[in-house]
């Protein structure tokens, strides 16, 4: 345990009674005394503060914005060149087989590109960017900044008490705020399906900022357990579960993340790792799709649950990649991959739980409507 990294908020987590668990090489709070269920519901009704400092923050810079953006487009199937200053986008690193190496957020900060990647992938992502982009683009891992997410319908009012400009930001805006005198980079985004912010702050100021935010009425510290159930209800992928190096973006139902200009027929189509595979999938379809799954009994269908097209016998048609209880839904929720012919909403399937086949229905994602400030 002693070789686990700690975030700048580690002492605060302990003080708040956080139950610390190893996660992607870090000691992180899975829950606080409130518990996963109440933490989840609190975030949906008020506001939750999440320590996501384990995620990787990287700055890319070069001769010009165009140079940086054009270079980054060689690694992701997204429209980077078209990103306006102060705007952010969701992205994917692909491999030569069109599989997903990681998912990420990227934001334009003047002529620079600010990238946030998953903790478990950050070393590989940094190596990938350095090897593909340097020396044309300088890839600088940011080692001295924490990342704090504030999520929920009360997030905007809470953050705006520290800087009224926060309220002016729209969904996926990115910029500098002064939160009670602490200069931060904030994006109006998150990974819970709620309105909110992700705030990059210097390690030195992180604890003071977290304490300042937690002192605001309605803001509570929320652990990784609730973060997982929140993102699952919001239909958002967990890298390593719902998407991985063997799934391409079309199978993952992430078509929306690839802007028209990079799709077949677009002005800058292809040109990223595995583009041939992804282009073909766009035009010719895929064998399997990621779908939402609503179990029809109270039994949660966990990751790995096998899905069949009949209650007895029948064919194995897919499996669950994330499954839990959705506190806001008030019942079990899951997502997984099924053969494309089984992917339409309301298709009746059966999931095998402890040797018994239980009914499950293909469901529209998200389970809980997003509450973004567009």
């Amino acid at each position: 345990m002693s070789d686990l990294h700690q975030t700048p908020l580690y002492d605060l987590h302990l003080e708040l009674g956080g139950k610390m668990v190893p996660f992607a090489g870090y000691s992180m709070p899975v829950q606080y005394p409130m518990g996963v269920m109440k933490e989840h519901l609190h975030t949906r009704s008020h506001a939750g503060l999440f320590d996501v400092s384990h995620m990787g923050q990287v700055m890319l810079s070069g001769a010009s914005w165009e140079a940086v953006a054009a270079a980054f487009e060689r690694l992701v199937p997204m429209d980077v060149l078209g990103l306006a200053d102060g705007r952010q986008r969701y992205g994917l690193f692909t491999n030569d087989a069109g599989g997903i190496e990681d998912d990420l957020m990227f934001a334009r900060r003047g002529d620079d590109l600010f990238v946030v990647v998953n903790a478990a992938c950050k070393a590989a992502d940094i190596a990938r960017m350095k090897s593909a982009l340097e020396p044309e683009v300088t890839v600088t891992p940011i080692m001295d900044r924490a990342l704090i997410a504030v999520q929920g319908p009360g997030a905007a009012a809470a953050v705006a008490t520290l800087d009224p400009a926060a309220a002016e930001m729209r969904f996926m805006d990115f910029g500098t705020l002064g939160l009670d005198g602490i200069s931060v980079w904030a994006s109006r985004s998150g990974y819970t399906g709620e309105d909110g912010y992700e705030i990059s702050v210097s390690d030195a100021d992180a604890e003071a900022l977290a304490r300042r935010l937690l002192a605001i009425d309605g803001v509570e510290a929320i652990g990784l357990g609730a973060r997982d159930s929140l993102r699952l209800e919001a239909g958002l992928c967990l890298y390593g579960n719902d998407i991985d190096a063997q799934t391409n973006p079309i199978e993952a139902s992430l078509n929306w993340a690839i802007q028209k200009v990079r799709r077949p027929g677009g002005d800058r189509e292809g040109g990223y790792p595995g583009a041939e595979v992804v282009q073909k999938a766009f035009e010719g379809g895929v064998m399997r799709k990621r779908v939402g799954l609503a179990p029809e009994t109270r039994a949660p269908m966990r990751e790995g649950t096998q899905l069949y097209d009949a209650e007895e016998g029948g064919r194995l048609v897919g499996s669950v990649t994330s499954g839990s209880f959705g506190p806001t839904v008030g019942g079990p929720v899951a997502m997984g991959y099924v053969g494309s012919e089984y992917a339409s909403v309301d298709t009746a399937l059966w999931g095998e739980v402890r040797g018994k086949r239980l009914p499950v229905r293909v469901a529209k994602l998200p389970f809980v409507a997003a509450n973004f400030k567009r």
Partner: protein
Amino acid sequence: MIFTEEHEWLRVEGDEITVGITIHAAEQLGDVVFVELPSDGVTVSKDDEVVVIESVKAASDILAPIDGEIIEVNGALTDNPGMVNDDPQGDAWFFKMKASDPSQMDDFMDEAAYQKFIG
């Protein structure tokens, strides 16, 4: 009330034994969202998995503490699994059983010994 190393409690009243999980176990599990109970009348052996309990995070099994027959289950838990967190050592008992060999309970702990066991 007597306690097992599997964090179950047993209340012995005549030849009827009520079984549940301890407050400590309920705290460790977190918010319970699903309970699957055995059928009345089934014969079980010590350490058989008789109850499935799922929290938001994961599934766990409750083992039969002794050999015997399940004579009643607490159906209220199926509709309201959260009772396990609210009152684990009271209303949220799982099942009642008859022991085939009461001497299997001889090694179970009293409250003081259990408190010491969980430290």
